[in-house]
């Protein structure tokens, strides 16, 4: 045996192998760790850096006040009201326990709010918007404001703060136009219209507030807060002040709007919704040359100020109920009705343009017309004898237009329907308000389709076209559509796109951007035909025997207008009047309808006179007509 001490072997092969093995394992693990670090720090470092910043930065929103809405002369229609709110800063509250409970109880007495509700409110709001202050009660009285403001030591963590609430100083006036505001909903947050809007923002929910929300909304300010892992504020960063929303100027004329409301009240429509709101109505006044809406109203109306704060469910239900008059509905664009004889102007244009008649074609009005085995009568069975289109419009001869209905039914292409659509009936007008109704122009194909699906009891018949020719039957048109159709006849073929928004302005009323309503469609109408129809309408409002001549007696200005009396199953007749008052500078087209208002000359025509008198600066008087024609 060899002495080990002599044969010095620093390391046995086995140990060397094992040490080498450990070395290999160590190198492998180091390599693994380096790869991991490379991945974390170099390849995905940006991402982690962003996450780290998200971790500690909280941006607290400072809501921007919304822009004002003003009328065409700059008079305020909607603005903001400074109001007092009681706000909690949760981090400054006393620690949970006896002290905090006592504070809640004290505060509850001041605000007449149970302490339990205070606790719940704070918890709920904090869950939705952490790091923000909690608004406990909005719009508190000056007394409560001063009480809390002067006793800050008694109310640690509670502050009385001024906030902006949407204010509608005109109350009932044009409520449906301006619309309402409310906190953005989860669904709206996903829509492209509200891209970039923060949760909790007050946005337009209806009307102009909705359409022009983009301008009115403004830009929220922000206060940056740096926090630590426990969510405590470490320090407050820079503050970005909020930017008030832009002012939107409408084409609405406040005086005309007021006159419209007065006119509606005069014919028995309640201005404010209530259980007695049986008569309901709407009016539109529009510039026929460019589609600017000068006034638009729907009654009964409501006070939109109730929507500046969260609405109680009971009130909301009431505002939507029919017994109450459904005041949220804007009947000028959402009321789709048969229009009665006001439609005859459209039938006349259709018949003239398609060559069915000329302005001189005589049709004998014998007081009734037998179609198949049904007899269609004039109202009161008056017979007007042989008349042409002018006279037919003046006296509102049903038989004349029944006859056109019969003749048009034979012709291919649904002449009257085609022209009704061309002139803007039964299709969206494109007004800058949300939720406009399209209405309905009944065609043979439409009714036959319904019949095939067993949704109606009979297919299209000639009688349908006879009814349609005088604005009865299945026709559904909105007052605004009638105004557009008459405007088109008045201006010679330009189908204007009605709009309320004129321009976007800064707070001082300087124009920032003109609002373009979009281009108008054109239809070509023969000048002679157009003259004939307008002459008929002028005679109707201005010559003896005209259906609304007695209403406009002594008015002192040229008016071309047509009464309408729509028969509605199960209720009194609906009164209609659509008029065009030519003027070199301020032409105007109006459409007025009063549900259960009786004959056209009884309600709608007198209301129209009242509105037009305001527009032209004439003496506003209410003259009720005697004509009992449709």
């Amino acid at each position, binding site marked *: 045996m060899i002495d080990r001490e002599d044969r010095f072997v620093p390391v046995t092969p086995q140990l060397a192998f094992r040490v080498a093995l450990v070395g290999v394992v160590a190198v492998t693990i180091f390599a693994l760790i380096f790869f991991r670090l490379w991945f974390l720090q170099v390849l995905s*470092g940006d991402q982690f850096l962003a996450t780290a910043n998200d971790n*500690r930065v909280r941006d607290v929103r400072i809501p921007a006040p919304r822009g004002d809405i003003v009328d065409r002369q700059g008079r305020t229609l909607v603005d903001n009201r400074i109001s007092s709110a009681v706000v909690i800063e949760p981090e400054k509250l006393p620690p949970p326990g006896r002290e905090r409970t006592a504070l809640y109880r004290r505060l509850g007495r001041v605000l007449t709010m149970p302490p339990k509700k205070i606790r719940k409110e704070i918890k709920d709001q904090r869950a939705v918007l952490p790091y923000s202050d909690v608004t406990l009660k909005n719009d508190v009285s000056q007394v409560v404001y001063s009480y809390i403001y002067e006793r800050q030591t008694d109310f640690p963590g509670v502050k009385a703060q001024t906030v902006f609430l949407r204010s509608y100083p005109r109350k009932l006036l044009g409520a449906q136009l301006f619309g309402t505001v409310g906190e953005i909903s989860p669904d709206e947050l996903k829509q492209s219209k509200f891209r970039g809007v923060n949760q909790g923002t007050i946005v337009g929910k209806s009307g102009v507030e909705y359409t022009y929300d983009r301008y009115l909304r403004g830009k929220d300010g922000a206060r940056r807060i740096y926090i*630590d892992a426990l969510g405590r504020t470490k320090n407050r960063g820079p503050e970005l002040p909020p930017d008030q929303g832009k002012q939107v100027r409408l084409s609405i004329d406040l005086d005309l709007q007021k006159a419209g409301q007065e006119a509606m009240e005069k014919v028995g429509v309640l201005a404010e919704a209530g259980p007695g709101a049986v008569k309901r109505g709407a009016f539109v006044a529009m510039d026929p040359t460019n589609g600017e809406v000068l006034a638009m109203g729907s009654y009964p109306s409501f006070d939109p100020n109730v929507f500046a704060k969260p609405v109680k469910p009971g009130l909301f239900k009431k505002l939507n109920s029919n017994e109450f008059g459904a005041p949220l509905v804007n009947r000028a664009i959402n009321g789709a009705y048969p229009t009665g004889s006001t439609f005859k102007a459209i039938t006349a244009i259709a018949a003239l343009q398609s060559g069915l008649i000329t302005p001189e074609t005589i049709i004998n009005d014998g007081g009734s017309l037998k179609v198949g085995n049904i007899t269609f009568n004039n109202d009161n069975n008056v017979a007007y004898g042989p008349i042409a289109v002018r006279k037919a419009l003046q006296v509102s001869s049903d038989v004349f237009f029944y006859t056109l209905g019969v003749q048009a039914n034979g012709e291919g292409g649904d002449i009257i329907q085609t022209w009704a659509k061309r002139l803007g009936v039964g299709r969206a007008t494109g007004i800058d308000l949300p939720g406009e109704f399209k209405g309905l122009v009944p065609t043979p194909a439409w009714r036959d389709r319904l019949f095939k699906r067993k949704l109606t009891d009979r297919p299209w018949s000639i009688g349908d076209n006879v009814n349609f020719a005088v604005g009865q039957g299945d026709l559904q048109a909105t007052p605004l559509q009638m105004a557009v159709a008459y405007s088109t006849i008045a201006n010679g073929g330009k189908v204007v796109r009605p709009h309320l928004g004129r321009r976007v302005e800064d707070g001082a009323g300087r124009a920032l951007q003109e609002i373009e309503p979009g281009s108008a469609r054109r239809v070509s109408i023969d000048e002679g035909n157009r003259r004939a129809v307008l002459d008929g309408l002028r005679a109707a409002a201005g010559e003896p025997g005209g259906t609304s001549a007695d209403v406009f007696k002594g008015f002192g200005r040229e008016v071309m207008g047509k009464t309408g009396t729509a028969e509605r199953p199960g209720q009194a007749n609906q009164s209609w009047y659509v008029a065009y008052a030519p003027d070199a500078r301020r032409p105007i087209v109006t459409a007025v309808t009063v549900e259960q208002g009786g004959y056209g000359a009884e309600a709608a025509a007198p209301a129209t006179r009242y509105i037009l008198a305001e527009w032209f600066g004439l003496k506003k008087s209410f003259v009720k007509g005697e004509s009992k024609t449709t």
Partner: protein
Amino acid sequence: MPPPVSPTPIRSVDQLTEPRRPSFTTPLDPLLTLAILGLCACSLLTLVGATKEDISDAPYYYVYRQGAYAAIGIVLMVLLSRFDYSRLRELRYGLYAIMMVSIVAVIGAGSTTRGSKRAFELPFFNFQPSELGKLLLILALAAFVVGRIRRGNDRDTTARTMLLALVPAMIVIAQPDLGSGLVYIAIAVALLFFAGISWKQFAALFALGAMAIVIVLIAAPAMGVEVLKPYQVDRLTAFLNPSDDPAKQGYQQSQARIAIGAGQRAGRGDEATQTRNNFLPEHHTDFIFAVVGETYGFIGVAVVLSLFALLIWRCMRILTMAKNLYGVLIAGGVLSMVAFQVFVNVGMNVGIMPITGVTLPLMSYGGSSVLVTLMALGLVQSVYVQGRKNASAKGRVLVD
């Protein structure tokens, strides 16, 4: 043709013939010393930034203390390196007894922090017996293995060694200090490995270990027996899917990963908000590596890891220079202790290992950990010094 497997030859276990010479003049291993000093410096530098805002009145509280621990530890290291470690072999029973008594006593008399009893509260610092136990276990167990290995019965040696390690390991795990317990087991396995136990035994150990894990993590809870505390099981399994519940067990790890990633190439310096704003928990102890990652970036962690690699390599090298098997095993034990803690701690910081509460040697704040690690490295220095002296006595030159 590989040589037949034989037990590791015993080389000069008792150097009775060696003339006693004063070893005070032999220098320390320069590279190992460099790595140690470098890591201590890194630790202090990192703590300056990481703990500045932890105690509002004393921004350098942790730095001063860590500095003091490191200074005392380095003195201890130098002192230990001047003595011949071989003499400790005779004290093995005493060392083992001290270890057992101290880790049992702490359960009875230690102070409670966050539900665990790990430390004795001494003036100026909390002494953790489980940390010192690592060193004592290396010394006692290595001596035991040296004695057993000559008998040639591998299976017997393996079983007894593992038993001697598992008993204190289980007590420590019950404190509960899972990390240290695992270090004990790692040390025992490493000692057997460097002592030359046959592969067959390791295969058996591996199988037993796998079975134990299955029983502890899956079978026992299913039967309603709680071997580990639920939070320990959660920690061990959370790394598998850290985003599972980021608010709970995965939280620490996901915050550590965010911190490291946010450091990018060159670090965020004073902008290290994950650390400064307390998003990263335990940032001066268990997650100090993530602090390095956030504050100094890839460059910083590369420096720290390089220093550890240097340290581990020197331990391996010194192991092969030892004058006797006891020296081999001491160096091997310390090597395994340091390497295991580095890999497990860094692995947990970067999210590829479970959270086990293992500290990063020399870097993590903590008196017991720093002192014990430096003392252990002092012993490795002693192995180096003795190895050189032995070689020169025989007229041979040892290549570093």
